[in-house]
């Protein structure tokens, strides 16, 4: 089966600019996750969608980050304006349902560098 697709793979922007990342989960996966992985740390959950609804965004810096999954399929994560500390790999993952019992599949990530 096709994996989780993410684009772009790499992005370099200046601080205060905006950036958007795109994710297409595995077909049929109802639950989609965005993680932030800062160098030297484990992935941190930013937001979790169940179909097109947000079920957990408690760690999303909502003053600058936003995400949507309008049709319950692909998703976009946006940062506006970016700060230096946003430099990280942004991972998208999906699972069949909210239990995760069938496993989580991760995309290759987008490596963001803010200069």
């Amino acid at each position: 089966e096709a994996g989780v697709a993410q684009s772009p793979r790499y992005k370099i922007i200046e601080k205060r600019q905006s950036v958007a990342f795109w994710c297409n989960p595995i077909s049929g996966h109802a639950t989609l996750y965005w993680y932030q992985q800062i160098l030297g740390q484990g992935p941190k959950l930013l937001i979790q969608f169940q179909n097109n609804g947000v079920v957990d965004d408690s760690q999303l810096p909502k003053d600058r980050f936003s995400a949507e999954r309008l049709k319950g399929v692909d998703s976009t994560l946006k940062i506006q304006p970016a700060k230096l500390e946003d430099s990280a790999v942004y991972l998208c993952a999906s699972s069949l349902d909210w239990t995760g019992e069938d496993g989580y599949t991760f995309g290759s990530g987008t490596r963001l560098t803010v200069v």
Partner: protein
Amino acid sequence: AQSVSQHNHHVILSEAASLELGCNYSYGGTVNLFWYVQYPGQHLQLLLKYFSGDPLVKGIKGFEAEFIKSKFSFNLRKPSVQWSDTAEYFCAVNAQNTGFQKLVFGTGTRLLVSP
């Protein structure tokens, strides 16, 4: 909220040495446990997972992990490592019966296997 601790941030081994990576979690209820591996330049891949049943779980590439409920631990083991096992290893937990589960990662252990 659940949290995951990985005690070893960096491990260096020679080929054929035995490996054990520690993982402890904090959550009083029922948990699902995972080990993921991230090879250089690649996305997170599932090594093994525990949901229920036999606490000794066997995964891919000769890895296994043992769930010890009384110690809140899920240590990863491999009897004889290979150079190709050089990667970063992440322990992760999601908690059952807490509404929508989310996958929480440890900080990772970077393993370097010298030939």
